[in-house]
């Protein structure tokens, strides 16, 4: 990052547009991994790793880059079995780099494959093997690609939503039968790149968030602070769909999907994420909280909920909120359908109205001693903050328009 900054400065002084960097990622594909499930059983997995000596992880390592970067993936297949590929899901790469074996190329045992792409849009993407993808994805050959904006890593995209922390819920399932060698080590014809393989019926018994389930999720706590936005990335590489239920106190705002901003952000505490989809949400906690995000796993054919997993979320403190001193300020009614009244504010003062992401909507100086009317009639329902600034100090309070 530091060298990027220096380069940018140099080129800015020269009047030249800064060059964007190239990121090189090394991935090794293995088919001899082991995964310990929450019931203590071990299964064989295929997967990706950065280092030769590592057990492949499920999910694989997250590939991270910056908007506009050229990214090169050096994929080394060390697995004595079927070939593998890397499909860059959602990154809209050209055909040669798309990772579909019969339309681009496949990487055989001990071969290297090189995938090149530019990342024009910040967002959340996937990568996975596309050789007999039904089996190789279930086997564990998948991971996330996260592309961040080039100028500020704490915004979702240029002029987007700012956030303090981010968290990811990456959903999948495991059917242990699919992890028997009789399934994983399927036949393949080295003379063909269009492999036809029999699939067993899919009846998953394990339901994962970030590769973990049940007690394994106990240490996957999302931590945040009141009045500090959390950017929550949701992705589903499973064959069931997910219903993600956000505690109401987090004031979930759905803002992007599949690497593109939504045309209209949507306040929602429940979001369905289907196989291959990704969503981004801004969580805007306003008070301390100790709760859970619930993820349901729903059968695509029957609509029945097969399982639920819970990811703890802990919100602490009152970041950025100055509590009133001895002065008895008050805002009422709260919640309101649009009109709020502020009384007890010192004069003169400036009151500012901020939206849930901290952006200033409007401000006004006043010397009124009688209650001041603040109208949010023209703004959508949601969480807002009123900040009163005077010589005596500042005071911020949350209001809800509903």
């Amino acid at each position, binding site marked *: 990052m530091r060298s990027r900054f220096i380069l940018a400065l140099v080129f800015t002084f020269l009047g030249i547009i800064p060059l964007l960097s190239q990121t090189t990622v090394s991935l090794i594909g293995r088919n001899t991994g082991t995964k310990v499930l929450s019931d203590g059983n071990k299964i064989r997995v295929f997967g990706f790793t950065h280092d030769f000596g590592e057990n492949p992880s499920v999910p694989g390592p997250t590939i991270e880059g910056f908007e506009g970067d050229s990214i090169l993936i050096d994929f080394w297949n060390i697995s004595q079995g079927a070939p593998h590929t890397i499909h860059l899901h959602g990154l809209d790469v050209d055909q040669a780099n798309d990772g579909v074996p019969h339309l681009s190329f496949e990487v055989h045992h001990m071969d290297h494959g090189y995938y090149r792409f530019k990342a024009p849009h910040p967002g959340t993407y996937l990568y996975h093997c596309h050789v007999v993808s039904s089996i190789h994805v279930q086997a564990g050959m998948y991971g996330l690609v996260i592309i961040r904006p080039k100028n500020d890593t704490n915004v979702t995209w240029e002029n987007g939503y700012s956030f303090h922390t981010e968290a990811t819920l990456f959903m999948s399932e495991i059917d242990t039968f699919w992890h028997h060698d009789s399934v994983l080590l399927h036949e393949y014809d080295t003379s063909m790149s269009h492999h036809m393989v029999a699939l067993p019926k899919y009846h998953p018994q394990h339901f994962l968030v970030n590769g973990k389930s049940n007690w394994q999720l106990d240490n996957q706590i999302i931590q945040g602070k009141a009045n500090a936005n959390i950017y929550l990335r949701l992705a589903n590489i499973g064959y069931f769909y997910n219903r993600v239920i956000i505690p109401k106190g987090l004031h979930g705002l759905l803002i992007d999907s599949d690497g593109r901003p939504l045309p209209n952000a949507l306040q929602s505490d429940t979001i369905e994420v289907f*196989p291959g989809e990704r969503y981004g949400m801004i969580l805007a906690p306003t008070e301390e909280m100790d709760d859970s995000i619930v993820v349901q796993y729903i059968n695509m054919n029957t609509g029945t909920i097969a399982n639920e997993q819970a990811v703890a979320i802990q919100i602490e403190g009152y970041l950025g909120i100055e509590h009133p001193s001895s002065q008895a300020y008050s805002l009422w009614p709260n919640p309101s359908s649009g009109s709020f009244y502020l009384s007890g504010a010192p004069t003169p003062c400036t009151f500012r109205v901020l939206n849930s992401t901290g952006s200033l909507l409007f401000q006004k100086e006043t010397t009124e001693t009688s209650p001041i009317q603040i109208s949010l009639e023209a703004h959508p329902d949601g969480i807002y903050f009123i900040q009163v600034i005077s010589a005596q100090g500042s005071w911020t309070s949350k209001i809800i328009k509903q």
Partner: protein
Amino acid sequence: MNWCVAETVSYTLFINSGIYTAVDSAQFPASAFNLTAEFSPENARIIASSGDTIHLRIINNDSLVHGFSIDDKVPLLNIAVGDTEEVEFHFFEAYIASIYYDPLAYPTNVALGLAGMIYIAPSHASTFYWNLKEFNKSWASILATGNSVDWANYYPDYFTVNGRSNPNINLDSNARIVGSVGETIHIIIANTGQSVHSLHFHGYHAQILYASESPNYVGRIKDTFPIKSMQTMILELIPDKPGEYPVHDHNLVAVSAGGIYPNGMFLTMLIQ
């Protein structure tokens, strides 16, 4: 300004039953609304312009009583064996996709195939049509003989677009997208199956022009499009580069037929 003159658009639909031959040569009973008295697994597409009078003549060519309906548009018509019913209706909105179907014994007759799409154009774009439908081979025989199944245990094993599975979907010029860089392409999708299908596009993002499930989806630019049972969607794709790229269900069980990968809901787009 161009003024479109509303017309009467007439179709005759035959309710046919027959034997569906799947991509792996497996055979099972199926039904469809066809444009002739000969059974084809591909349901007829009804295409009209906004304001047009759509006149349908529906002939029950099967040996069972059937129904016809379009949600919020045409209430249930019962059609006795050998009988003909006629109905007229309009869509006043453009860029709408809807589903006509046989609601009797729901979802039995739909599961056997009796559901097709209606597209209200006009579209000046290249237009392709995907009627998504999945079947359970064993259940098709049970349902066709009037017996019931437990839908809570539904596990389909054949996944089709316009009645075809991979690689035969690419043989359907109405399904396989062939176009050029910069061309505006519209894709009309109806899910007439019972499962949810989550279609993933390689190579491109597309924009949702219409979604029957929720107006909130309109305008979203995505690469993966979930479509629930009996819902429709219209996508606009403007390719920015040439190549051959797949579109497939990302429920990766659904890219199979008779349990064989990759013979399911998988096709490719060819952009010059």
